[in-house]
């Protein structure tokens, strides 16, 4: 408080006293009561809307015992749904990894006309209802769609088959990787790449040895989120899949069918597997955030 002792004498004593008292607490600190209320609201809300449902999933799944739980997975339809979900994720996630890296690279490192339009476009899957996304593809590739006759003539099935599910999943999960990388790459700028180029590295070598390592943790983070959504996507996939049991049912669709048939235990058993995948993803994400907070800095929130 040395400023106060050296303050001009014309400042009344009580004024400097007031600032002295206020300065003892940081100005942003609220009273304990306000803190407590805010924390309380947050915790109650989280417990009610997030934690409780999660616990319910696992409780319901094991309600009829462990054998019933396992039986739900031994059913051929369930196994085929799990296989399909993993297949779809295995195709959609790498595709979006490539698309996402390419898009964010183009956006972050170059300036070109239509850049802000492209950024807006990348966000489209976030803002459009998944059902609409699915319908768009039915309209394009379905029997009555624009490319329908052509596809039928060449005996290619997209809607009500694996390609349609993959396309819908790719569409819905597209923003995750790109959204993660664009702010990161924008923050990092071009200087590291310029340094590599000036040292004689080719464009591709620079990308491989400098750009990729710089974004690796952000990329992994984006891929995790993308994967979680790819496995869990319901709306868009429901529209294009056709719900053919054992063929085009993914895990979320399978769960819905089981539930509609009042096979609650089996529905929750499969649901618990999806929830477990989500938990693993969350854990991996938290570890990444905790371990590599610096390299993830600059990412925008979701």
């Amino acid at each position, binding site marked *: 408080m040395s400023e106060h002792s050296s303050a001009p004498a014309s400042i009344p004593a009580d004024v400097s006293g007031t600032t002295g008292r206020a300065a003892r607490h940081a100005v942003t600190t609220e009273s304990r009561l306000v803190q407590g209320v805010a924390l309380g609201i947050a915790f109650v809300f989280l417990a009610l809307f997030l934690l409780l449902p999660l616990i319910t999933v696992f409780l319901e799944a094991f309600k009829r015992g462990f054998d019933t739980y396992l039986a739900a997975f031994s059913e051929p339809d369930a196994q085929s749904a799990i296989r399909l979900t993993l297949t779809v994720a295995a195709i959609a996630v790498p595709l979006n990894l490539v698309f996402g890296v390419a898009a964010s690279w183009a956006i972050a490192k170059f300036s070109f006309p239509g850049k802000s339009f492209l950024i807006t476009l990348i966000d489209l899957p976030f803002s459009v209802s998944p059902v609409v996304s699915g319908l768009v593809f039915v309209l394009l590739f379905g029997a009555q769609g624009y490319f329908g006759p052509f596809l039928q003539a060449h005996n290619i099935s997209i809607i009500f088959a694996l390609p349609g599910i993959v396309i819908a999943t790719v569409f819905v999960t597209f923003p995750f990787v790109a959204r993660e990388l664009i702010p990161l790459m924008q923050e990092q700028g071009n200087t590291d790449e310029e340094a590599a180029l*000036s040292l004689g590295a080719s464009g591709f070598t620079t990308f491989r040895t400098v750009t990729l390592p710089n974004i690796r943790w952000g990329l992994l983070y984006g891929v995790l989120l993308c994967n979680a959504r790819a496995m869990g996507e319901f709306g868009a996939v429901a529209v294009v899949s056709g719900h053919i049991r054992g063929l085009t049912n993914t895990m979320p669709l399978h769960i819905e069918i089981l539930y509609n048939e009042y096979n609650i235990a089996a529905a929750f058993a499969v649901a618990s597997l999806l929830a477990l995948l989500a938990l693993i993803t969350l854990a991996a994400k938290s570890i990444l955030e905790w371990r590599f907070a610096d390299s993830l800095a600059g990412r925008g929130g979701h």
Partner: protein
Amino acid sequence: MQTPSPGVAGTRSAAVQAGTVGIRVSGIGKEFRGSKALDGVDLAIHPGELIALLGPSGSGKTTLLRIIAGLEFATTGSVFFGTEDATHLTVQQRRVGFVFQHYALFKHLTVADNIAYGLSVRPRKERPPQAAIRRKVQELLELVQLDGLDRRYPAQLSGGQRQRVALARALAVEPRVLLLDEPFGALDAKVRKDLRRWLRDIHDRTGHTTIFVTHDQDEALELADRVAILANGRLEQVGTPDEIYEKPASPFVLSFLGDTVALPVEVKGGKVLLAGDPLDVDPEGAAEGRATIYLRPNEVTLAPYGTGIPGIIASQRRTVNGRRVEVRVAFSDVLIEVEVPAEQTWSVNDRVGLHLRKARLFPAD
């Protein structure tokens, strides 16, 4: 401006082996979306010379450096490395060592791997064997006085150390010229001074043609063989530190190199008049009419009243090195700031005589 001798050697390969070449740019112009960042810049740099590109921000100095490096391409004009036309060469083909203001070290690589980067990304045929690379890295670590830190990561180094790694990394590829973009700009004052001396030392030992960009006048004068001053995309003056300080080519150069006082005068009948009274200043053939005399505060002395230009002390302030006294020229509104030793004390309204030890006359604009 002297013309440089041609590159060290006549042929390209020999010049590369000899290590370094002179640089010549001619008629360089650069437009960014219609605005001119550079406009007709001609500059010749001798082989082995250490030259500073000095100018305020927005003067185009960094753009010029990046054009020489091949990180940007000029709208008009050419770049020569020695006798070779490098205008259309890519940054990789130019073989320059570039040091960035914020180091641009590769965060995921150790100090040793950073320095080795340029050698290890070479195509297999041109790549030196691992042992040779390691030897080279060790040599460079010693040169930049960082031996023992080879296994650290950039995040574990201080700013000064990082910039030294960046310089070692640039030197590893045996560049033909060394280009530094505000190399000390991100460092604090003490480290800056140390690194200045150190860079001069390295330059004298390795003998690379070196261009560095700075906005710090002290740095440019202290470090460079010659200084090129840029303003608004044009080259204002090129010369040794003494030349640009003692014989500034324009009021801009003069005022950019330190505090100045401008005295409005009139040239009439071969005499220089200040507030109607003749001054003891040679007009050196300046055109008749209004003109301005530029002075530095340390180029004016105060003497007892009755000699020199009569003046009245208007104010005085203590500074670290002495006193700054403001003197009003008698019978006018002109104020001159004068630097005097601390022992000299004056009171406001004292009458004094002003002696101009040096006066530079420029036509009024």
